[in-house]
């Protein structure tokens, strides 16, 4: 083993250095992946915070809210065809004049109300 190591350092110092570097990079990525997987499996992190790229239906799906509830929260016309309505939360905010925080609060209170009714 030590002969192998001294062979590496003597004959291939650059390749050995690259090997060590690649192992270090591998460990960093594996560590981040593991940390993310643990966070992912934590049930308290299930409902994602609203972000501007999300669509109203996407919010409904990820917060498990029925479409009529989402339409009310975002002050959307229930009868308008999908392509007429706002496509992203950016559009919802500009149409309603709400801020993202206010919208988040509305979603959270609707979720709580819905869960209270289901119990």
């Amino acid at each position, binding site marked *: 083993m030590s002969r192998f190591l001294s062979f590496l350092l003597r004959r291939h110092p650059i390749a050995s250095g*690259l090997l060590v570097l690649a192992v270090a990079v*591998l460990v960093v990525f594996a560590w981040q*992946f593991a940390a993310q997987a643990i966070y992912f499996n934590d049930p308290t992190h299930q409902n994602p915070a609203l972000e501007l790229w999300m669509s109203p239906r996407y919010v409904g*799906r*990820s917060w498990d809210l029925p479409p009529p509830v989402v339409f009310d929260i975002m002050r959307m016309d229930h009868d308008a065809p999908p392509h007429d309505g706002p*496509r992203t939360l950016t559009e919802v905010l500009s149409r309603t004049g709400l801020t993202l925080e206010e919208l988040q609060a509305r979603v959270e209170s609707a979720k709580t109300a819905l869960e209270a009714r289901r119990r």
Partner: protein
Amino acid sequence: MTETLLALVPTYGVWLIMASVTLSCLALPIPSSMLVMAGGGFAAAGDLSYWQLVVAAAAGFMLGDQIAYHLARAGGAPLIARLQRRPKPAGVLDAAQGMIDRRGLAAVFLSRTVLSPVGPYVGFLSGALRLDWLRFSGAATAGAVVWSLGYSSLGFGFASRIPEIATMIANSVGVVLAGAVVIGIWIWLWHSWKASQATTT
């Protein structure tokens, strides 16, 4: 940047996905895997059709692969021919060509699925080194279908967790690529060690 792109998905739908997948086959830095996955999430929410998404992603992938292959074949072949007239690069090129001939299909398929960051370069190399077009297209199409189905379904299944899955995928791609480099260097060093043992004994 990624968020701006993501916001375009519900607005422009599957055409945006198709265009971005095609462009990323040409080595342009577009996070197309994340876009397809987000597309899966939007499909689960009812903004897009799941099957249209899969077809658009796979079609964009095949189109991009063909563009890369033919561009490199037209532009790269003369360059390769000129390099082959010099003795030193000719050896390396012959080795690369031999590998493409022997393991080319596996390389094409793997670089379209597990090792997708190197996909564009394998596409260019396959064209420049004149890997048989039919065989290249077969392997590339199979890879494109698996990739498109995989990312669309992942997004569809974990619709509410798209941002987190995107980070996890970025990290797992890092693990795979760094792992491939570690294995590659290790094998090379081990062979070198074995060879030196054989000469000393």
